[in-house]
């Protein structure tokens, strides 16, 4: 990932910052320029909850080059408390122990790195809550 793009996405990747439409209240994550529900262009910045429920997941066995060291790994859709859905890796759990509906918690992790000399990209992943 290029440093400039990584830098632009830090608020959402580091702090789960979302955009809440000032007109209709829809929460967009990642933040958007135009509300997909009402077309409004002004948003408040809100932080999403750091816990939620795993709704579904898949296991990646043939990974993109920057993730090969981590494969096989789980990528799931988590409904955070408050209702926003995020796509995230689910880690610190054996793949055959993952259960749909289980509580998970957001943790700050390394997501990918640009080789051994490039930048390290940090962001969120989910781990079992209990």
């Amino acid at each position, binding site marked *: 990932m290029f440093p400039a793009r990584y830098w632009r996405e830090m608020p959402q990747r580091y702090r789960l910052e979302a955009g809440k439409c000032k007109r209709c209240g829809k929460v967009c994550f990642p933040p958007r320029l135009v509300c997909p529900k009402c077309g409004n262009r002004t948003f408040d910045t809100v932080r999403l909850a750091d816990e939620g429920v795993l709704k579904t997941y898949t296991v990646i066995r043939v990974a993109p080059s920057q993730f090969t060291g981590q494969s096989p790994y789980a990528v799931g859709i988590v409904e955070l408390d408050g209702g926003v859905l995020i796509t995230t890796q689910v880690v*610190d759990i054996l793949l055959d122990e993952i259960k749909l509906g289980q509580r998970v918690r957001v943790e700050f992790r390394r997501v990918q790195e640009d080789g051994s000399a490039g930048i*390290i990209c940090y962001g969120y*992943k989910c*781990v079992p809550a209990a």
Partner: protein
Amino acid sequence: MAGIVGYGAYVPVHRIKVEEIAKVWGADAESYKKGLALVEKSVPSLDQDTITMSVEAARNALKRAKIDPSLIEATYVGSESHPYAVKPSGTVVSEAVGTSRNTHCADFEFACKAGSEAMFVCVGLVNGDTVKYGLAIGADTSQGAPGDALEYSAAAGAAAFVFGKEDGVAKVVATHTFMTDTPDFWRREYEYYPRHGGRFTGEEAYFRHVATASKQMMEKVKMKPQDFKFAVFHQPNGKFPMKVGEMLGFKREQIEAGWLAPILGNTYSGSSPMGLTAILDVARPGDMILMTSYGSGAGSDSFVYEVTKKIDEVRDVAPKTRQQLDKKRYVEYGVYAKFRGKIRMAD
């Protein structure tokens, strides 16, 4: 007078037992367990490093501090395993927890006492009214060469403290430091693993510095070992902190609450600060705590804390340190070697 307003720790979930490491190198596990007084150590995952653990520990500290992170005006991360050689860990941590943009930010390095250095400087800045709140972190994903004695103890973890002018959960009664130029342990530029002076790391290094700093501190505050409810010393293994405590006149029960090395290993810059978090998890208002770190090279920072009534309000707001230690998943040596980057991969 500065106080600890919030505190937090982070322990990775993975562990490796001494037996598993000894099996690979044909070593006698029992002699290592007895010699080091530890049975297992924490292991960071592939996606964990000093920065990620610092952020998690800092978030736990901020939950207990119950302050707006934007009020933090100093962020210091002490570690000897900063992920970048050039680029601060502290900027990532500040951005992730949402401190002020005017936060004074720096990474510290002084072998295993980099974390207490961060604490020492934050206390000074708060006492001098230079900052309202300061965030001090000690964290490491410690390195130990394969097969070396260090491999049995070099672990991973982090502790974070928010210091402020109010008493908080513990008042900082006094700070003290002692240092000499002692080449007991080092890592040269571009070297992957540290080297050490074997037995020289004991008497003239660890014991001299920890004992001297602690004695001088007790003289400074006119206190004796029996005046303290708890004491925590740097924990390169399970044996040294107990031995130095005994040398100083402390009893085993004063040290046990913060004695994490037997089931955590040596978290280097996180070591005595993590022990302090475990003590705060069980301390009562009015308890006095002596903390003395140790960093090779060499030096010790000593702190005296007095626990306040507020501890009972915030203790359960974030995960306790021993609760995190109880949550674990064991890995075999192969997985450990992969997690720690000990396997040479194709580009």
